[in-house]
Structures are given as structure tokens and as C-alpha cells.
């Protein structure tokens, strides 16, 4: 493989950029592999990358029904953070943040990881207490967190609506190490790293069924490009997990919902990091191109349509205007929708399934992007060793039956409220 560096850039610049090679290999499927991964998004490709790099298992194929990174990996708002308060989440997301911090050097690809800070605003005494408690939980686990008062917030973002009569800004919980990353580059970087180590990345290859032996164990998959054998199959298709699981006669504690995101026309740099509104659901950051990237709540009804409805657009924009009135002058450039695997407690699943040989990585709700590195790392660990990684032991499929949900928001079994 070509190792990217300032020298490779200079060499190609001097030869007119005519000699760049494709970053990864678009493979045709072979008849059999040791492990199949369904889903060529960030999580699936990260899984393949860490299986090859950490566990030395390279006889793997990643099967993608469309093109890699064409699902939620290409539809998110690119935020990375590890500001979780519950046991089971804190260590996992901090492991993800640690991997983010070394990712570009690790896979030798510019993922534009930018630790520009994530600021959660609070608007009441009660919310300050809740955020202080979460910040303390983070700090006890070695995660960075700072509780800012009103003046601290004002220094970071003087244009916020500090005079809001109903939801005055009292302060914020800041995670300085949080920030954003370039979502497509994450996909391409993992694809390149996996492909270079011998992993087959197979596009336009939709799985249509599972092959099982007399005992019910998985022996392979049927696809639109033929039958492929493998004794271990990992499913990383968040958004469509229920549909793939149904092919193996499994029902999941998941509903698919639509989350919309928006980007404005490009503006000069104004928003330093990620800012979230604590009284409504609204979060915003600014891309390196200058567009304001923002979003809010899921629409709230089951959907596989990859697009939402206008009431949510209005709701998100109202949230934006409440906290940051200046953005009313910016024009909306685009909006889009992604499919979210909403679980019954708002937390993901990385576990074996009752079907022998079938492994599940699912339920990322609307927060899968930040988890990409750790999700891949932990799913690879599970596939390679049949044991959960130490940071992902809580993400069990049976936690709902045993009474161990990880309900960060405290909503109960109501997916559209997480």
C-alpha cells in the first residue's frame, strides 16, 4: 500500500496527481470466508479493520448492499464525544474517544478528527445539578469534563441567547476533547486499512437469507451475488437490524426511526465546537467548509423512508432560534434523514445471538457515529474470541429480559422518547 505522508503528497503533486491509486480494493465475493460482516458502514468496516489488525484474522468479507458508507455513516452530524454518565456507557465511549485520538496515525488516513469541544447548555438549577453529576461521573472515570457558569459559556459563544425569558442559559457542561470528524474519511480510512490487510470489501451485494445447518447454526448467507459460506456472521446494519435479524427468525428490542439533519449555506467561522440546547433538542456545529450542521429530535414514528416530515423541521429550527437567534439570517441549504435503530433503552447491543454463529452489532439509536472505533474494536473482539470486550460487557441482547437496561435518559421502554 502507498503510505500517505507529506512526501507521497509532494511526489504526486510533482507528477500532476496522475498516479494516485484507488484507496481500497472493490472485491468480488469468494465462495467462503472465516467471518462475514454484513454492512459496509463505519461499524462494519471498523470491525473488519480491527479483526485484521488486532486479531490477525484476514479471511473476511464485508458485504454491503449498496456502496460503502452510503447509509448512516454518510448521514450523521459527525459529532464525537464521550460524555456519558452511566456505568456500561462511560468506559465504552471513552475507549471510543481514545481510539479517535489515535485513529489517523493508526490507519494512516486523514479523518479530520477535530477536538473542538462539545458544550451541553443547562437552563435551570435542576439541570445544573444533573449535568454536574454527569460531569463528576465522567471525571471519576478519567473523562474530561468542565462545568461552566454563564460567563464561561459567554466567553465561548457570546452570541447565544442569554436573555431568553423562559430558558435562560445558566451554564454548560463542556467536554473539551469532544468535537467532530470527517464521516466519509472515517469509512474510507477503515476500508483502506482492512482492504490492505486482505479483507474483501464487496459492494452491491445484498444479503437475502441465512444458510443454517440441521442444528440451526449459521453456515453462510444467500446474497444477490450468490451463496457465501462462513461459520461466523456479524451483523452491523443499524437502521435495518430488524430486517436482517428476521431472516434468522429473531425479533429484536428495536424500532427503526427517522432522524433528520440540516446544513446551512457556508458562513465564516463562528461556532467553535458543538453546542447543544438543553431545554429543547437542538445541536449545532460548523463544518470546515463553513456550513452550520444541526439537528434535533427524531420524528418519532417508525420509518424506513430515510426522510422525515415538516413538523420536525419546524421544531428543530425553533430550537435553533431559541438558543442562537443569529442563525435565522442563514439560509438552509440541505436536509436529509437517516435511519436509527432505536432500542428500548437508548443504548446499543454488541452480543452473540441465540442463533449459533450469528453476532449482532445494533441499536445505535442516533449516536452511532461517535462509537464507530470502539464499536468496531469490541465487535471484532467478540467475533474473534466469543467473549465481550471489557468495555462492552453491558451491551447484552438479553439485558431487557434480565432487567439490566442502560437507560441514559430514564425514559423506559419507549423507543421514540430516547
Amino acid at each position, binding site marked *: 500500500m502507498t503510505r500517505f505522508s507529506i512526501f507521497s503528497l509532494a511526489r504526486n503533486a510533482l507528477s500532476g496527481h496522475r498516479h494516485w491509486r484507488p484507496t481500497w480494493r472493490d472485491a468480488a465475493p469468494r465462495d467462503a470466508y472465516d467471518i462475514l460482516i454484513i454492512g459496509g458502514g463505519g461499524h462494519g468496516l471498523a470491525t473488519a479493520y480491527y479483526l485484521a489488525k488486532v486479531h490477525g484474522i484476514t479471511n473476511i468479507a464485508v458485504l454491503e448492499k449498496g456502496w460503502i458508507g452510503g447509509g448512516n455513516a454518510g448521514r450523521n452530524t459527525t459529532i464525537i464525544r464521550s460524555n456519558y454518565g452511566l456505568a456500561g456507557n462511560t468506559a465504552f465511549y471513552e475507549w471510543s474517544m481514545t481510539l479517535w485520538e489515535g485513529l489517523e496515525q493508526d490507519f494512516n488516513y486523514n479523518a479530520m478528527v477535530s477536538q473542538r469541544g462539545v458544550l451541553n447548555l443547562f437552563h435551570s438549577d435542576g439541570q445544573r445539578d444533573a449535568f454536574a453529576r454527569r460531569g463528576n461521573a465522567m471525571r471519576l472515570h478519567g473523562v474530561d469534563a468542565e462545568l461552566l457558569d454563564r460567563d464561561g459559556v459567554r466567553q465561548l459563544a457570546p452570541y447565544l441567547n442569554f436573555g431568553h425569558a423562559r430558558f435562560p442559559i445558566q451554564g454548560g457542561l463542556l467536554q473539551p476533547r469532544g468535537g467532530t470528524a470527517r464521516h466519509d474519511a472515517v469509512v474510507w480510512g477503515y476500508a483502506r486499512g482492512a482492504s490492505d490487510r486482505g479483507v474483501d470489501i464487496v459492494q452491491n451485494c445484498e444479503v437475502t437469507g441465512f444458510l443454517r445447518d440441521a442444528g440451526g447454526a449459521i453456515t453462510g448467507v444467500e446474497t444477490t451475488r450468490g451463496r457465501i459460506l462462513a461459520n461466523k456472521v456479524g451483523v452491523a446494519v443499524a437502521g435495518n437490524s430488524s430486517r436482517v435479524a428476521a431472516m434468522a427468525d429473531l425479533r429484536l428490542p428495536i424500532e427503526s426511526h427517522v432522524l433528520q439533519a440540516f446544513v446551512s449555506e457556508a458562513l465564516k467561522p463562528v461556532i467553535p465546537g458543538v453546542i447543544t440546547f438543553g431545554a429543547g433538542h437542538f445541536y449545532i456545529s460548523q463544518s470546515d467548509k463553513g456550513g452550520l450542521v444541526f439537528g434535533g429530535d427524531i420524528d*418519532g414514528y417508525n420509518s*424506513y*423512508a430515510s426522510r422525515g416530515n415538516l413538523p420536525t423541521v419546524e421544531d428543530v429550527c425553533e430550537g435553533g432560534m431559541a438558543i442562537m437567534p443569529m442563525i435565522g439570517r442563514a439560509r438552509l441549504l440541505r436536509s436529509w434523514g437517516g435511519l436509527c435503530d432505536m432500542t428500548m433503552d437508548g443504548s446499543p447491543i454488541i452480543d452473540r445471538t441465540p442463533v449459533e454463529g450469528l453476532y449482532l452489532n445494533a441499536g445505535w439509536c442516533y449516536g452511532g457515529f461517535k462509537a464507530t472505533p470502539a464499536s468496531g474494536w469490541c465487535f471484532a473482539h467478540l467475533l474473534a474470541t466469543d467473549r465481550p470486550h471489557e468495555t462492552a460487557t453491558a451491551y447484552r441482547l438479553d439485558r431487557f429480559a434480565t432487567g439490566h437496561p442502560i437507560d441514559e435518559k430514564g425514559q423506559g421502554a419507549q423507543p421514540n422518547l430516547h
Partner: protein
Amino acid sequence: MRIPCPFCGDRDAHEFVHRGDAGPTRPAGEDGFFDYVYLRDNPAGPIAEHWYHAQGCRNWIIVTRDTRTHEISGARYARDTTP
């Protein structure tokens, strides 16, 4: 999305609260309770689901909707369903 409320007629979805799949029915005993609370078919296609017309007639209704297109094919009062 406009929802054809059987009492009010076509109304904007904004007026309604979505409760979810109307398929699962509450079991009489402990058996089946986990399935009822947590597991969903989550179909890509037609689904019958509970909506509450919170900012209208305050009826609970069952709407039949295609999750792939958001096309609504019918709505009726939830109370008309035999448990």
C-alpha cells in the same frame, strides 16, 4: 404527513402523539410480558400503530401506514378493536 382522524378528518401529524406498534397485546399473565414490552416486528412495509390525537378530539386511533413511504391507508378508533 396528514392523518385521517375518524372523528376530525384529515389533520396534520403535528397534532398527534405516536405511541407505536398496535400489534402487541398485553398478556394476561407473566408469560409473554417480555415480548409484549420489548420485542417488535419493526416491519419495513405496512404497520398498524397507535396514535393519540392530543391536540384534537383526544381519541386513540389505529393508523395503517407504510413505513417505507409514510403513505397512510386507513385509520379507525382504537376502542373498536376487540382485545
